[in-house]
């Protein structure tokens, strides 16, 4: 091989894409040719420099949007569970079965709200309409809801434990206006939806995960609370514990 032969394959050589025999030919030439050795060395240092260029990382917004686009299950497990329950009710025909069905119906209603909560969270992030009122001051955010809702959502200052309030907005679930409070942990927004509970019995937080989002629901002081975020479970637990002591 001479210099011009080597020049034709020098990139493939450096990239490890040559057949063994051809690579051996290049190596033999390099031993006797300082100019070609220099050309190989130049390409190696070029590659090292290029690999130092920082990677562009997908923004969280994009992650949320892509996660939201995921395919829904073909047959929802809920439908299957329903079918099983109805079959049970028919076979038993008893008051017990009716209670089971009733509990099932309530659980399904809650699951449907949870889906709505996640959908609203994703919509808010995608549409960038996260705030109607943007403020880190609870004494600004709370009064803002006063003339817009017939209830007053509790607004807490959790900045000292690392969950600053960033604002609030009005949202609508099932035709009813609800308060949406937005807190933040690093780059992760947390939406907290609040409205008067239909079942006002106090209930501790129950946790579920929907399409990669952590969702927690609890009832306190006659209000239904839903918190949703792409935060990890541990951090959202910490947040909810602070909010619902």
């Amino acid at each position, binding site marked *: 091989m001479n210099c011009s032969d080597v020049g034709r394959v*020098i*990139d*493939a050589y450096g*990239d490890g*894409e040559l057949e063994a025999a051809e690579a051996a030919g290049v190596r033999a030439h390099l031993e006797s040719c300082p100019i070609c050795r220099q050309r190989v060395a*130049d*390409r190696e240092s*070029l*590659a090292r*420099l*290029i*690999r*130092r*260029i*920082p*990677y*562009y*990382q*997908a*923004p969280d*917004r*994009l*992650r949320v*949007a*892509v*996660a939201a*686009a*995921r*395919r829904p299950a073909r047959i929802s497990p809920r439908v299957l569970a329903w079918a099983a329950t109805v079959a049970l009710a028919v076979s038993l025909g008893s008051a017990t079965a009716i209670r089971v069905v009733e509990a099932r119906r309530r659980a399904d209603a809650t699951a449907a709200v949870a889906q709505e909560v996640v959908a609203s969270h994703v919509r808010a992030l995608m549409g960038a309409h996260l705030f109607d009122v943007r403020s880190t001051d609870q004494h600004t955010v709370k009064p803002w809801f006063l003339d817009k809702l017939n209830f007053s959502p509790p607004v807490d200052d959790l900045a000292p434990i690392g969950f600053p309030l960033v604002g609030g907005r009005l949202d609508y679930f099932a035709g009813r206006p609800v308060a949406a409070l937005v807190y933040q942990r690093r780059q992760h927004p947390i939406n907290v939806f609040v409205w008067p509970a239909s079942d006002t019995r106090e209930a501790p937080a129950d946790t579920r995960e929907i399409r*990669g989002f952590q969702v927690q629901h609890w009832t306190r002081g006659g209000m239904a609370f839903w918190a949703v975020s792409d935060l990890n479970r541990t951090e959202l637990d910490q947040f909810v514990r602070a909010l619902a002591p």
Partner: protein
Amino acid sequence: MPRGGFEEVVLPHLDAAFNYARWLTRSDADAEDVVQDAAVRALRFFSSLRNDDARAWLFTIVRNTWYARFAKVGRADQPAVFDDMKDDRPDEQLDPEALAIQQQAVERMRRAIEGLPVDFREVIILRELEGLSYKEIAAVIRAPIGTVMSRLARGRERLLAILECEPASGGAR
């Protein structure tokens, strides 16, 4: 069909997809649009993913999406818009002066690549940042392996020439 669902197979490569799209479009906003569209396409064609290399498969979809959106309307090679230096990860062992020089060199290289025609730019990114083989790159850009090799060679020649003729101090255009 790939093993695992869309989440496990595709989402881990979202950064790689975004990085490639960002180099193709040279714009954060356009890259986001492209990857979002590509993800929808990827979902639709997910069942056609035959082998285990979801990353290269995703690159192909990103590239097709980008091509459909931008290349046809002639925006694909609009002049580069330089934004601020991104967070470089320098060597911790270096003293501050050497570190600054290294950061400058990396930033100059980033701009030099951004200034390359997209045909050269993308093969360099796929090879150096993603470590794809010639065969894999050929599949992503739908070109023969020989074309991949010659574009890499010419792209590198240009970068080496730019580095040689640019003084170390003035990296700006």
